[in-house]
């Protein structure tokens, strides 16, 4: 079995048949993590516990009693999910060294099915950002920066600049998870998605990023950014794998009162051949300012792909899209101000040495524990929540949110099944360029194509589509109806098959796993 094999189709079978053992898989991933350390994708590597889990999995396979498809499969988890006994930092000084006593529900579910937890991945501090550049452990590097495809296309600059300073960002805030999946150090990873934090890095790193419907997957144990928009996100190398992960994670959790009560039945994705009954909507407002001509062309090409295959492709309108950034800013910062109030240094986490009074201890702790981005959002949020401002900002934003959500309802009611949009405005920016603007500006720009789905609670998925002229991945996004993940993923899978996105050519991976490139698919879409 190769590191780029699909879970259901290949790895699981290989494990069952004993062609590869869980311990071998685990060791290969751990070795690759070590040799790709420069990516800075992982904050914590749980080597001992992972090997132990792999051993236990091996025992089960020997007995012929694996727990399921995920038994023995190495996975990574974004460092804002609680993992018992393994540090959970949210890439913040506030939680450096914090060892949670409990597992997030999604983590527990994965462990219960025998998955092997390799480690916790890097992110923007407390998931605030769109670059995975603003955490205390440093930025995450996009593995494609080191790919043959990117290096071939890079114009060598002045002799003083080298590969080191040319690397591109992963996007964010689940950049570590996206990089981990992209560089083959794990088969799947958990991210979180509040305004696009799973789909954005998925697009930039050439992997599949799924944002499920709000209320489908439990948030118990996910350290919240915006409780009314957060969802656990799924990052995998192919759409089928995303369906497997979704099946193992979805369903009501009594510990999370915002999960729906209805029974969830895991599904296998059919191989769609006939798209003639499908109606694809192209929202005109998603031709946003700053959208690169390259991505615009790809988007158009994708629409044609569906049309030529017999689907109905129509232009639709989501008129309140242009208000979504401001609306998101108000609601997000207000919730952040509230959610961060618990970090006072008393019960857990960082506590300042300042002892003059409780109040001064709070202030020093929070100044020392939080970065600028977090502090900025807390201040904004508190401002919006002041009694004199509440109606003008918070309540107004709630109303606008309803309008944005209604836009989608109207479009889906008119007969459209799925919306097709770009995921990002351009391919991944070089780090040195990205940090020229501040976090707030970047987030506002980069979230525009993804955040409306969070406001409306809808499921959305980014599928790697083609390489840009610079040799970097570009993804396109599908947005579906509430709780219609099966239809959404079925269409995404059909699209994935059509575009045949190329496998990343990474020297480190080639060294570890020569099988990877035996079945290399060519990039047929660009």
């Amino acid at each position: 079995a190769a590191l780029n094999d699909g879970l259901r189709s290949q790895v699981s079978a290989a494990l069952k048949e004993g062609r590869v053992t869980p311990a071998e898989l685990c060791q290969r991933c751990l070795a690759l993590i070590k040799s790709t350390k420069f990516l800075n994708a992982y904050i914590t590597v749980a080597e001992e516990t992972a090997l132990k889990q792999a051993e236990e999995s091996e025992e089960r396979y020997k007995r012929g009693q694996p727990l399921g498809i995920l038994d023995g499969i190495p996975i990574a988890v974004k460092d804002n999910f609680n993992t018992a006994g393994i540090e959970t930092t949210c890439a913040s000084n506030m939680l450096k060294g914090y060892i949670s006593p409990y597992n997030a529900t999604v983590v527990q579910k994965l462990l219960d099915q025998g998955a092997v937890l390799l480690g916790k991945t890097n992110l923007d501090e407390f998931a605030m950002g769109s670059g995975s550049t603003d955490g205390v452990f440093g930025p995450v590097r996009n593995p494609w920066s080191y790919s043959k495809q990117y290096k071939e296309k890079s114009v060598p600059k002045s002799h003083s600049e080298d590969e080191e300073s040319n690397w591109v960002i992963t996007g964010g805030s689940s950049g570590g998870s996206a990089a981990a999946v992209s560089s083959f150090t794990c088969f799947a990873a958990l991210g979180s998605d509040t305004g696009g934090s799973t789909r954005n890095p998925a697009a930039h790193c050439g992997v599949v990023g799924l944002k499920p419907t709000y209320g489908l997957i439990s948030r118990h144990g996910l350290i919240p950014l915006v409780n009314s928009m957060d969802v656990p996100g799924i990052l995998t190398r192919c759409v089928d794998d995303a369906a497997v992960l979704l099946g193992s994670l979805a369903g009501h959790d009594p510990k999370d009162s915002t999960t729906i009560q209805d029974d969830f039945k895991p599904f296998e994705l059919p191989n769609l051949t006939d798209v003639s009954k499908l109606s694809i909507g192209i929202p005109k407002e998603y031709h946003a300012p700053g959208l690169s001509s390259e991505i615009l062309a790809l988007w158009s090409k994708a629409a044609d792909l569906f049309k030529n295959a017999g689907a109905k492709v129509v232009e639709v309108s989501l008129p309140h899209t242009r208000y979504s950034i401001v609306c998101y800013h108000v609601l997000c910062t207000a919730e952040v101000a509230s959610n961060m109030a618990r970090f006072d240094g008393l019960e857990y986490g960082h506590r300042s040495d300042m002892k003059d009074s409780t109040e001064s201890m709070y202030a020093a702790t929070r100044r020392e524990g939080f970065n600028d981005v977090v502090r900025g959002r807390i201040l904004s949020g508190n401002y919006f929540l002041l009694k004199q401002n509440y109606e003008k900002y918070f309540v107004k934003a709630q109303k606008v949110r309803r309008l944005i959500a209604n836009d989608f309802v109207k479009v889906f009611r008119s007969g459209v099944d799925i919306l097709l949009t770009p995921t990002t405005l351009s391919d991944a920016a070089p780090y040195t360029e990205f940090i020229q603007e501040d976090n707030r500006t970047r987030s506002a720009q980069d979230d525009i194509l993804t955040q409306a789905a969070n406001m409306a609670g809808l499921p959305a998925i980014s599928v790697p589509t083609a390489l840009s002229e610079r040799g970097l991945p570009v993804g396109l996004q599908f947005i579906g109806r509430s709780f219609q993940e099966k239809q959404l993923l079925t269409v995404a899978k059909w699209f994935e098959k059509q575009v045949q996105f190329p496998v990343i050519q990474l020297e480190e991976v080639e060294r570890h796993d020569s099988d990877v490139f035996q079945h290399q698919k060519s990039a047929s879409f660009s």
Partner: protein
Amino acid sequence: LAPWVPVVGLEIHAQISSNSKLFSGSQVQFAAPPNSLVSFFDASLPGTLPVLNRRCVEAAVMTGLALNCSINKKSLFDRKHYFYADLPAGYQITQQRVPIAVNGSLSYSLCIDNKMSQMVTKTVRIKQIQLEQDSGKSLHDDIRSQTLVDLNRAGVGLMEVVMEPDMCCGEEAAAAVRELQLILQTLGSSQAVMAEGQLRVDANVSVHHPGEPYGVRTEVKNINSIRFLAKAIDYEIQRQIEELENGGTILNETRAFDSKLGCTVPMRDKEGKQDYRFMPEPNLPPLVLYDAKSLPANMNHQQVINIDWIHERLPDLPSVKRKKLVEEYGILPEHSFTLLNEDGLAEFFESVVKQTQMKPKKVIGWILNDLLSYLKQHSLTVKESPVSSFLLADLLNLLEKKEISSTAAKQVLAELWKGEGKTALEIVKEQKLELLQDQKELEQICQAVIDGQENE
């Protein structure tokens, strides 16, 4: 001098009697070792979420119905933000926008004079009842310059009952609170013991001249008993009147009652107006309640609360119980108040009545004058009484059959009180307290006495 009209409103926090807390599964228990009843959610560990406790909702619905409130079929939860050591999350989950119950009323009775011979009934409007979390406790250790925090109480369910400013003095407030306490205890929705912090009362007090708008009000906190409640309110009313008559002004402030000095003092902590930055609690969907009409057909009844179902099962409230006692036993209304005021006394009375031929109207005297005063003297509860209803009934039977006089009966009772296991009859025989019925025997004794006198 123009007369003053005092205005008193109350905010009462009643701890809900439940096994576990409002939003988490940790236990509710008084005086447990510090931080032994704290779940991850109570400690505000990041990533934990609130899960509403059904029993707490039922308790609030019961209380709302007993107070004649409209129960809101849809109510909402909010976050109230402030920083304090005993509030781990930095906010309290409460119901600010739409509480669970509104627009009720509470009737209570007062004696016109001290002799309890004339009772008058008054009503106070209940503005609302809301569900909210209790905070933990913090103890300030000034010697070591540290604050000790115990989170056992953090997250325990509270019902906040808001009484409109319809009261005019300490006595009215005390009577209203006493009646509320009895109602809560009858329902079982709260044990409402003030000494254990299960019932906390804050008073809003102001004064004005008739015909003029209401004056500035102060909030009085830190009141630990019903007796102190009346004292604190009356003191504050006087203080405000004196201040205003001397040309001063009343500050809209929070004051604490100092029970040792018997006065109210400004509270240093609460200076300045707090902006609580209320925000909807995003992790809790709206609380939806049903009644028989609105209950969907195939809904799992474990998942829903049916207001009508709860209404049908409400026990007799104190006012109903009193009425029944008066009607059934022919006792005076003020007697029924005293019976209900003492835990277990009404049951004791009824038990005695069942076991004796003496008329209830006579029994009541023995209960309220004799038994009760013994209990009070020795600070005992009815449950702890060394004289059981059986023993007392037995004694009263002797009296009824005219086998002893009522003076003798009191003597016997005193002896019974010692709890030495003797019956009334045994004591009577021991102390030769039998009433002599035989006319001839009596004449002989009298003659002997007279003869004895003549000999001196």
